[in-house]
């Protein structure tokens, strides 16, 4: 597979701000100094600003719509999510491939097709199971004995095993594609419309405006859009501060931080990014004095544990008074605000006594 190599090239920068190449500085060579200074002034870490559209009122959505900018944010740190793709924004390529009727088109990811195939197989499998249940009930209704039932069950078990084994061998042959007609799918030229936008989580947008100058919106303007400034008080700003502090903490230590909602937590931590590693850690952010009923923790932990990931409870602790923090906020001194919270972490893991005896 060439993909490995092209991925490491495609995703070689972990952040959308790229380092500059400065020439080597040789202490004994004044010429190299001059050249260095020239390069320093000429070069820059800045990038072309990414344009965001912010929609919604009470609930805000932050969207990037320009295709090259969507790809740029994905490639340089895996920011945002394609609204029609749940991950990398590939809807346009996928759909184009579908329309072309070319299942093996190289632009669509085969993974998604495989997933679909799997689902189809699964539903066939389920149908069999239903049929078997029916057989069993019939046997019982007809006054079958325990022994007869045991025989039937054994037969069914064998059948299912064979069926499972037969599946997966004839992959990618299932074909029935249902199509749909919607005028909005195509633009006036008759080409497929770019319907998909890349959505940034609010914390991502803050990171890309407050911490790194990437978006074409200032942090102050962004916050004014995200928060209710008419009723500004600690309680209106705190929930977002809490989320951002945690997000920034992990981002700044090199993790690729993505939404954890599908695992019922706040964030997923990837080393490098989704194409390289599975997420190993799930982060749930809490106040340092927050607690819930045990079932709250146990359900998150079971979802996370079921996916073989480690659950981290990240407790955000306030180091300054609420009043001080609101004042800093009103001065737009976000740096001081975010520095006024400390993160404290614990690993939360189910412990099974039987597995810890030696």
């Amino acid at each position, binding site marked *: 597979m060439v*993909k490995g190599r092209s991925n490491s090239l495609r995703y070689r920068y972990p952040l959308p*701000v790229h380092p500059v190449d400065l020439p080597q500085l040789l202490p004994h060579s004044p010429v190299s100094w001059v050249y260095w200074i020239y390069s320093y002034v000429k070069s820059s870490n800045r990038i072309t600003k990414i344009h965001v559209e912010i929609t919604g009122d009470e609930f805000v959505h932050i969207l990037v719509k320009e295709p090259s900018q969507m790809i740029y944010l994905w490639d340089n740190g895996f920011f945002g999510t394609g609204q029609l793709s749940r991950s990398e924004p590939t809807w346009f390529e996928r759909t184009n491939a579908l329309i072309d009727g070319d299942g093996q088109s190289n632009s669509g990811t085969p*993974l998604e097709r495989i997933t679909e195939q799997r689902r189809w197989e699964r539903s066939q499998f389920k149908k069999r199971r239903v049929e078997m249940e029916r057989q069993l009930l019939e046997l019982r209704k007809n006054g079958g004995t325990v022994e007869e039932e045991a025989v039937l069950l054994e037969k069914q078990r064998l059948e299912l095993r064979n069926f499972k084994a037969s599946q997966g061998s004839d992959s990618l042959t299932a074909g029935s594609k249902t199509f749909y007609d919607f005028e909005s799918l195509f633009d006036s030229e008759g080409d497929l419309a770019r319907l998909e936008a890349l959505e940034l989580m609010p914390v991502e947008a803050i990171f890309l405006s407050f911490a790194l100058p990437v978006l074409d919106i200032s942090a102050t303007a962004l916050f004014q859009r995200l928060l209710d400034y008419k009723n500004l008080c600690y309680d209106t700003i705190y929930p977002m501060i809490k989320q951002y502090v945690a997000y920034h903490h992990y981002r700044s230590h090199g993790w690729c931080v993505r939404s954890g909602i*599908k695992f019922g937590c706040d964030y997923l931590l990837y080393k490098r990014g*989704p194409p390289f590693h*599975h997420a190993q850690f799930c982060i749930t952010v809490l106040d340092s004095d927050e607690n819930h*009923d045990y079932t709250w923790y146990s359900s998150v932990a079971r979802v996370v544990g079921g996916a073989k990931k480690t659950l981290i409870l990240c407790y955000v602790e306030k180091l300054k008074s609420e009043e001080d923090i609101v004042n800093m906020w009103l001065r737009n001194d976000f*740096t001081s605000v975010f520095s006024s919270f400390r993160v404290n972490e614990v690993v939360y893991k189910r412990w099974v006594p*039987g597995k810890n005896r030696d």
Partner: protein
Amino acid sequence: MSTEDHPQRPERATETTSKSDDVDEDEVAQDWSHAAKLSAKSMASSIPKRGEKDYEPDGTNLQELLLYRAREAMFDTLANSPRGSVVSNQVKAYYDQDYHGAVIPHAKGNFLQTMGNVDEKGRCWLKFHEFVYLAERGTVLPFYCNQRPEKQAGRFVEVPLSMQDVYSLFRSQAEMDLYFVFAHLKRLGFIVTTLDKKRSATASFYLEDDPNRRTVGAIWGSMFAFLKLETNSLMNVFFYSSWNFLLRRYTSSPQIYKDLKRLVPHRVPPKTIEALRMERARLQANRSKERFPIAFNVWKPQTRFRKKSPGLPDFQVVIHSKNDAAQTFPSYVDLQEIFYSLDYKFEFLSETDDEEFWINNTFIGGRPANIPKPKQGQTDECNSSKKGGKKDVAAHVKQARRLKNGYRSFLLAIIDDGLISFVKISEADFGSEDVWFIPYKRPRDRKEVNKSKDSFGNKGIHTTSLK
């Protein structure tokens, strides 16, 4: 899209959920015909093997029969599993109300290795939960008597106690919950003791409290924290201003990260012997009343255990009864309190399970505990198998281990109306670990080197391998 990004799909989740994880909790386990077989004395008829349960009542006679048999298997097993002991093994234990425990006049039995306290008169004193546990197993026979048995003056009346009598002696729900957790761990072979009130008599990782050290520790700690915060905030002011990227030039991504990571302070838990002892000294002074006291010290099953000099426990257990309206799950403030009070084999300190290390770091009342060293070849199998193989681990593997396992930890036993489960909660520290990817400058030069790795697919290119 990565393959894992379909978490809501149950098919996938079922695949990835490890079997053993669920088996111990799923209801499949309650097949009493299985218990009937295990139970040697049981006369329960063996019923046809049928692992799977039904979806719902279907009104058939056969299903009725199966349900009837399942219940018979259960009640037969219960009825045919009497508590008690044969006359030759009979050990009578007398409940003592003042002690709230039981006394055995002439103790014998294996249980003495891990339970009870034998006094100078040869009597064995059982704590109440030990008494209930042993009575419930049939190891001791529970009795009540009108006077201490050894006196034998006047009329000595002893009345045998039933299980109902024994349970009526629990003084609170909390005590009963503590017992259930105790019994749960004991049944699996763990060695479990309650914490002694007298600290001076128990093994500790910590030296005796030293007031001088405490002050020094406190001053140092706060000064250091203050300095770090101040320098960080100065540098942050510049980085997060609009001037930063106009004036500064970053020649590598790590440089940017190093500036980014100064923004949010994080707590660094103690990770070394020195740090642990320093923290202990600093914080001992203002300990308030414990909301979550440590209920038990727990040792893994072993034959070498000595009641007199048990050394440091492997685990410590805190109990949370979730349906008790007066209790809450611990908040971070509570967790912090619990972490401070821990005193066990801090497993992260020693890479190998090094006997010597723990012997040298166990104190009783501020003095070395003098735990007898195991003779050559006498170590438990579990220890010897663990030794070796842990050295020379790659840096990123070590880092992953630190992140996953954390530092100080305890077990939280949760009781949900009699169902017990455990959670291990450990201090973690992501703030001290950097995992950013270091891009290589000239990918062309590296192509040949990476080729073999890439051919295995696109996952698993380690940061460390690309430096």
